[in-house]
């Protein structure tokens, strides 16, 4: 078997919760990510779906090396990212880039587009000024921006165009993997489709892998080859995009799908009670049992193992839904 590009094993990140003003002491721990395992191949898109507070963005930051895990490992091309013997973090950050949700706060308003896109190139060095400029213009063209606008400032661009600038900046150092954290959520529908199509074209042309983090299931399905669903710091289900959407096995995935208002194909509505519990106070047993319409006694006491329910389709549920389409 070939080595995956990115391999995450049992990853966990806990944040200390402090109390007190002068003499702060730790009173609790917030487990934002609690035992996540994922893998991602070259040229592949893995969709990471979940609601606010499920840990999907923290997972993205861990993969970027912006946070250090409390435990678990992230391997990139087989090498442990956080082991300084094996990986030079500076080197790693050239291979992995990020595009953020908010194209307004993620671009420096005092720099021109050319300066913004050139910055990663200057940091890694090795290019003359003229060469850098040439590469910047090439990148702007690649993401569908007019190279004649290179000397404009971010405020002169619309939201969609700014997101293109963010994508050009991420592509500058020719990364192998891009972490896309809700890259189209802040955009209007018509512009959202432009950016989605751009991301798909770039992947086809450049062979880059995407970790696509989003709460929007329709967009995730459209872009992803495989999908992982997160709930309260854990992966509850993962499968090929088709299988996951046509034949969900975890009740949470089913409820998420039922909440997607996609018109024609109305499923029977599965309405969840209440909201996501606080990650500081995770329910015993299965984490989802407080909202699960099918919860039984066993779910309240015993955490379910994450196991295969079909080839390449795994879920963390004592009573997977089974049956269905495929």
């Amino acid at each position, binding site marked *: 078997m070939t080595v995956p590009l990115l391999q995450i094993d049992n990853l966990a990140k806990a944040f200390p919760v402090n109390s007190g003003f002068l003499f702060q002491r730790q009173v609790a721990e917030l487990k934002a990510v609690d035992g996540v395992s994922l893998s991602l191949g070259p040229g592949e898109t893995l969709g990471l779906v979940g609601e606010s507070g499920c840990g999907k963005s923290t997972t993205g930051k861990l993969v970027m090396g912006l946070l250090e895990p409390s435990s678990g490992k992230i391997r990139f091309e087989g090498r442990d990212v956080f082991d300084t013997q094996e990986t030079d973090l500076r080197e790693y950050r050239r291979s992995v880039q990020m595009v953020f949700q908010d194209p307004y706060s993620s671009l420096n308003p005092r720099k021109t587009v050319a300066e913004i896109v050139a910055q990663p190139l200057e940091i890694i060095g090795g290019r003359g000024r003229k060469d850098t400029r040439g590469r910047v213009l090439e990148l702007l063209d690649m993401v569908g921006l007019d190279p004649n606008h290179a000397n404009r400032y971010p405020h002169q661009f619309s939201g969609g165009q700014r997101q293109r600038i963010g994508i050009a900046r991420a592509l500058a150092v020719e990364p192998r993997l891009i972490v896309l954290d809700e890259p189209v959520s802040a955009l209007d*529908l*018509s512009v959202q*489709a432009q950016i989605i199509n751009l991301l798909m074209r770039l992947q086809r042309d450049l062979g880059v892998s995407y970790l696509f983090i989003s*709460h929007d299931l*329709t967009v995730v399905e*459209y872009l992803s080859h495989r999908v992982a669903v997160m709930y309260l710091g854990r992966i509850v289900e993962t499968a090929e995009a088709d299988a996951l959407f046509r034949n969900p096995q975890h009740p949470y995935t089913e409820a*998420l799908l039922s909440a997607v208002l996609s018109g024609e194909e109305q499923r029977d*509505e599965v309405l969840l009670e209440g909201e996501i519990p606080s990650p500081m106070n995770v329910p015993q047993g299965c984490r989802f049992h407080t909202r699960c319409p099918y919860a039984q006694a066993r779910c309240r006491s015993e955490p379910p193992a994450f196991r295969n329910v079909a080839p390449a389709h795994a879920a963390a549920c004592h009573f997977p839904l089974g049956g269905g389409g495929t």
Partner: protein
Amino acid sequence: MDAPAPLLDVRGLSTHFFTDRGRVRAVEDVSFSVRPGEVVAVVGESGSGKSVTSLSVMGLIPSPPGRIVAGEILLEGQDLTTMRPRALQALRGDRIAMIFQDPMTSLDPVFRVEDQMVETILRHRDVTRAQARDIALAMLERVHIPDAARRLSAYPFELSGGLRQRVMIAMALSLKPQVLIADEPTTALDVTVQAQILRLLEELQDEFDMGIVLITHDFGVVERMADRVVVMYAGRVVETADIADIRSGATHPYTRALLASRPKLGQHSGLSAIPGLPPNLVNPPPGCPFANRCPEVIDACWLGLPELKPVGPRHFDRCLRNEAAS
């Protein structure tokens, strides 16, 4: 079917903003009406004028720089645009109420839920403080807030996003308004909570026989909730029809392009984006505002603004080509 008289009748509304850069024609000649028990969805992207329309109806346009320059807003035959501010204030919250996208910024952070609700009720009703508190409590229970008596004395920051939106709804409906304006009521919420809130709005509408104006950019929400749809683009209504006609046969190229740019579950390719951007509203070009992005544009489109003409029973559209065809 004999339609009852409209509760709210907006006729030829134009709201402009007088800025340093010139007059921004944010809303131009917008008409629609809402009957009891009817949900009218006003759909559009950012800058389409949908929110300015709702603020105009509520009399909440900041002036200066904004002003309603033409048109009538009739609430049961009474024109709100010519009403004195004090009379309008008496009406707002009582006969017409509004809920906003972000319940955190529209609730006052330094007052308890009880204080905010009781104040609203006392302002409009001749009741004692204790009676007002009972009304507030009953309303919180009505919107299914668990443990309502305790939540009454909570501050907004102590509530989750979904609970805050329920409080907003309870507050808006505590005086049983005839018309509710809901401006992106679920956009800030997670999908499973969004489904709960939409279900609640449907329930309450049945019970109170309210007319609802639903301002949204999300066609999923429209398909789920709306009876009638008003599509706005660049400050103008471009198409209006019953939801069934929009679903099966939208006629305006913008509406059709917008529907096609929305990924649906089960779709992996063929997402068509609308190229380009909406026009500047300071100096709008003559002709159709969508002409520069329209896939079906003909020479005549650049010359004059098409009128909103009927293309079927209860179905109107502002497109030259359909005008010629009918």
